[in-house]
């Protein structure tokens, strides 16, 4: 096994406001990791550094090579990112947006070829978004839009998929569908998945490894059972919860105590 992502002593500050402190973590190729933590704990910043949008202090290695030695085109074939917010200022159809994921595979002067169309169609099929491929992105609901963005990420044929709260705008059914899709891609294609997540119960059900951040530091890193304890949740989120094991999945699940 090789480390797909490795950071050592990674720190980052926006101007004088520190966001990440000395993050050292290693994600093996083929792992599926959920990153948890309250708002402002540094999840999004961490993902941005890993996708080379921001540059932190310290070492970041992808497939054993430092991130700085990659060109952006090369990176976009290794990595795909699903962002938290989707901005569309111009009328593009869903299919056009998904095809943008193929940009680093063909020349800047060429139109998309047969292979590109096939990959795009397969990605839309996987995310259940083929039925509205000809509709404009700004006409779609939040959930539909999110599925299109995941399809675009898959069209990049990445080795590593980074997601920033992929289920934020989705209803329960589509949340579960997205997580099932991620798990399938992870198991069948060996895709490495790193996702920032808010829903702790869903995270426990689908992600074999969880990392919880507090104030820009790794507070716990391990299996759901190790990470999601009543004490950790109280320390990190400042609320009292009851954690019990779900008898079917044998994963820990949280129950919120409204008394506090």
């Amino acid at each position, binding site marked *: 096994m090789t480390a797909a992502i490795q950071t050592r002593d990674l720190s980052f500050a*926006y*101007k004088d406001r520190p966001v990440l402190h000395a993050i050292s973590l290693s994600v093996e190729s083929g792992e599926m990791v959920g990153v948890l933590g309250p708002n402002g704990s540094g999840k999004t910043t961490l993902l*941005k550094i890993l*996708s*080379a*949008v921001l540059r932190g202090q310290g070492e970041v290695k992808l497939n054993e090579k430092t991130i700085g030695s990659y060109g*952006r*085109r090369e*990176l*976009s*074939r290794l*990595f*795909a*990112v699903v*962002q938290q917010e*989707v*901005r*569309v*200022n*111009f*009328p*593009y*159809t869903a*299919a*056009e*947006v998904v*095809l*943008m*994921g193929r*940009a*680093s595979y063909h020349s*800047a*002067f060429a*139109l*998309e070829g047969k292979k590109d*169309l096939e990959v*795009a*169609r397969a990605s*839309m099929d996987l995310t259940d978004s*083929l039925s509205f*491929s*000809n509709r404009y992105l*700004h006409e779609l609901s939040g959930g539909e839009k999110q599925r299109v963005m995941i399809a675009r990420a898959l069209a*990049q044929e990445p080795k590593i998929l980074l997601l920033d709260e992929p289920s934020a705008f989705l209803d329960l059914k589509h949340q579960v569908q997205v997580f099932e899709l991620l798990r399938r891609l992870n198991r069948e294609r060996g895709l490495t998945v790193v996702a920032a997540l808010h829903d702790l119960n869903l995270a426990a059900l689908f992600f074999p490894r969880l990392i919880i951040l507090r104030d820009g530091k790794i507070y716990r890193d391990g299996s759901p059972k190790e990470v999601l304890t009543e004490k950790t949740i109280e320390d990190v989120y400042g609320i009292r919860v009851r954690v019990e094991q779900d008898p079917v999945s044998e994963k820990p699940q949280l129950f919120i105590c409204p008394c506090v």
Partner: protein
Amino acid sequence: MKVLDRRKMILVNGVLLVLLALSVVGCALLGPIRLDLSQAFQNIFAPNPDAEIFFRARLPRVLLGVAIGGGMAACGVVLQALLGNPLACPQMLGVSGGASLGGILGLIFLPNWLLPIAGGLLGEISWVPLAAFLGALLSMMLVYRFSLFHGRLHPYHLLLSGVIFNSFIAAIIMFLNSIVDFYQAQGLLFWLMGSLSTRAYLTVAFIWAYVIFGFLWLWAKGLSLNLITLGEEAAMQLGVETGALQRQVFVASSLMIGAMVSVSGMIGFIGLMVPHAMRLIIGSDHRLLLPASFLAGGIFLCWADTLARTLLAPAELPVGIITAFFGGPFFLFLLYREGRRKLTL
């Protein structure tokens, strides 16, 4: 799955190219003196008044209009994409203003500085386009810088600072206009209102060279422009070197705007109107949108200028009046529609 294919590229550009060719010939035939096509092409080398009017008086002007209309539309397309703002255009961003100021400073202070072409054999070219280019580039960078906070571009600030910058520049221009002598002032004013009157094929060729160079440069960035409309971060993650893209687009479009403004003054609203109309018709893929907008912009200005010189013939309206007359209401309509559709501005 409907996406851009070669068939659509050829079809759209082909149709527009034919329309453009028809417009060029048609517009050159129209005017206070009616010309007959067969007459104009008969005995081109013998003394022939129809051919004289067609080739000497009207054709250069029509060709200049095509270059400038196309160039303005292409610049509008790329600025809108780059700044993530459907309402961006050279005028709104203060770029034409900056180019005008540069050009005016050139006209006032270096009127006699001429650059000889081929050792003076082919005539001389004025420095004004270069001054206008510098003005355009500087103002574009300035407005951009004033809308950038923590590395993020704020579209709201961008529009506001562009508009304010434009009025500021206008004040400087008016001031300059009132301190120069009367004849110079009148020349400046006419230039500012926008006009395509020219007789010189050399000027036309010169502007075409600038415009085509800039256009091809921008067209080569078509795919990256598609990606950057999803936002800077998304574009980076899809493989675009966004910083380099921004710099190249700024330089290429400033070059075009500078050259265009230096001969024709401020001809507004084409850069706003044409890209929008084309997006509605053919979609937003910049690999097609750019050439199609270029051709459509050429067609539009061709006819607007014909209107400008025939409406009150033999008197002549500045063509900027015609484009603004159609462009102003169109802009308001867009603003209203965007507001209702709630696209992020």
